[in-house]
């Protein structure tokens, strides 16, 4: 029988362990940086931005929120099926009771967004604070996210754009949707639609941090029964509706 060279075995074992540590080490370090990064700056991990729409206060025929959104992002009022629309007013009539409701519908900023799941390049993404957006640099314009969105909240830019807004760069061939006015929110402001609704005297939309128990939105959601559109899909929407 061939004698076993113990020292060679030990040497090989030590070398393998060292190589493994060298290979894994940087990854572990990067992972810990990534974990630390997530808790600071824009996209705060503990924040969940959301909106509450009170349909009892939303006035039928009022389009202040839609108009404000269009102005903010330089979007022409939608007329054709190819026109872009980030937010729309929907009029509802209960088929049994005849009760009517009016309300805006926009991207619901899901916690489990189907658009993010299906996007082949990862251009559709969700920030740590819950805002769902499209990265215009990696969107290839395949429109699969529009197929997947249960809320018809996304639009494809069918034509060359003019008069581009500095806060929302838009371009032909990409998909876009409500950003919850992320450029305002990151500076401590509120979305344009919320502001316009308040200015019009309705205060039908409130905006805030759903995870902050002291915020108005969190208190309202806790106190009143609210609805998520297509709750059966369990997408856990950031936009809630009251009075529906």
């Amino acid at each position, binding site marked *: 029988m061939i004698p076993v060279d113990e020292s060679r075995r030990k040497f090989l074992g030590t070398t393998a362990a060292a190589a493994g540590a060298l290979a894994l080490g940087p990854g572990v370090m990067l992972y810990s940086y990534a974990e630390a990064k997530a808790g600071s700056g824009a996209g705060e991990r503990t924040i969940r931005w959301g909106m509450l729409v009170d349909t009892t206060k939303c006035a039928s025929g009022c389009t202040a929120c839609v108009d404000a959104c269009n102005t903010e992002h330089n979007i022409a009022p*939608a007329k*054709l*099926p*190819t*026109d*872009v*629309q980030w937010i*729309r*007013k*929907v*009029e*509802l*009539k*209960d*088929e*049994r009771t005849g009760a009517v*409701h009016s309300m805006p*519908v926009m991207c619901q900023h899901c916690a489990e967004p*189907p658009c*993010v*799941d*299906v*996007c*082949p*390049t*990862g*251009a559709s993404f969700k920030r740590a604070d819950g805002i769902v957006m499209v990265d215009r*640099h*990696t*969107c*290839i*314009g*395949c*429109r*699969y996210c*529009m*197929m*997947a*969105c*249960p*809320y*018809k909240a*996304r*639009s*494809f*830019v*069918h*034509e*060359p754009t003019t008069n581009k807004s500095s806060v929302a760069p838009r371009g*032909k*061939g*990409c*998909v876009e949707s409500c950003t919850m006015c992320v450029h305002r929110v990151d500076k401590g402001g509120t979305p344009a639609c919320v502001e316009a609704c308040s200015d019009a005297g309705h205060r039908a939309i409130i905006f805030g941090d759903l995870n902050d128990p002291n915020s108005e939105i969190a208190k309202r959601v806790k106190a009143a029964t609210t609805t998520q*559109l*297509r709750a059966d*899909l369990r997408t856990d929407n950031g936009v809630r509706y009251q009075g*529906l």
Partner: protein
Amino acid sequence: MAATPRPAPPANLFPTAGVEPRGFWALAIAAAVVLLLALGAFHYLEEVGHVATGMGNEVVWGLPHVFAIFLIVTASGALNVASVSSVFGVKAYKPGAALSALLALALLVGGLMILVLDLGRPERLVVAATHYNFKSIFAWNMILYNGFLAIVAVYAVMSLERRWQKISAPVGVLAFVWRIILTTGTGSIFGFLIARPGYASAVIAPLFIALSLAWGMAVFILVKEAVCHWYGVPVSEEMRVRLRRLLGIFVATGLYLAAVHHLTNLYWARQTEFERFFLLDGGLYTVLFWGGFVLLGSVVPLLLTLLPRFNSPRALLWACWAVVEGAFAFLYSFIIAGQAFPMDLFPGYEVRSGFRDGVVAPYLPRLPEFLLGMGGVALAFLVALVAIRLFKVVPRDEMPAVEVK
């Protein structure tokens, strides 16, 4: 010692090199013209945007996708003969294996060209190739398409090179497994769309596999008959009978799974409104489904392939043509109606809005998107034509001594 003479290769695998197919250049130029028109349409869309198509924010995938998905699904099915030869070891199918593989490659290339040229930002193809969201079935499909091209290309080379034919079986098995996964992926692009009643179903993946078997077989038979006619090579009657029976079985399987899809939908209360629309009130979509897919694309080829009285080469060609027509009818109704039907965001409410909530979305295809679709067909045709001419892949049937009735 006298050298053992090499056994002469069977002369009936490939035709003699001197045979000149008729009309090659005419066919090639015709396909190239259609392809150029498609590229012109693509350029036009690049300039003015998708506003020049009939697609909008509701029907986001239109006629180009009908063509593209037909070609992609059919590509998988075109590999049938190669699979039967390699995976199931049926020697009678071996002469058709190379044509089967080349046809699969040509069809997939044509389908992918349409998908790429229809993108809003086609110049970002490199982004699509370098940024993968592995949770997306669409991203998985890109890997599956490229893998299919690579594996089938290797298989095609092995089928053409006599030295490697003996070791081509494992690659054939891999290609078979890959094509099943590929078509599962293609079907799942729709099956995973949870919010749309026309799509969300696990049955879509096996349905697409069954349809791919039928559509691929139909296209293969048409191409094989044309190629043999072109080169003046006789087609074995026994082989025709085999392919005819297979086609019938595949068509029946596709029809069965389509029926299962709609019957399961009818069982769920929340899906019945869509089924009422699709099966009864959908206008063109309803007509295309019943008249195009069920009657012309399924019942007619079933009668033509399974009834002994229609056992003729001409009837087989008509059956294949009907299957292809039915395929387009199926895809148009499936893809467009699934998007045109309004999603039910507010169950129990009547809905209206300035964004066409609660109404069936309009869609009327326009010339640029039709040309884009035809361009994919032209590219597939051109690739197949050149490959057949270049490699002289003419299937010369060698039937075993088994009598097939």
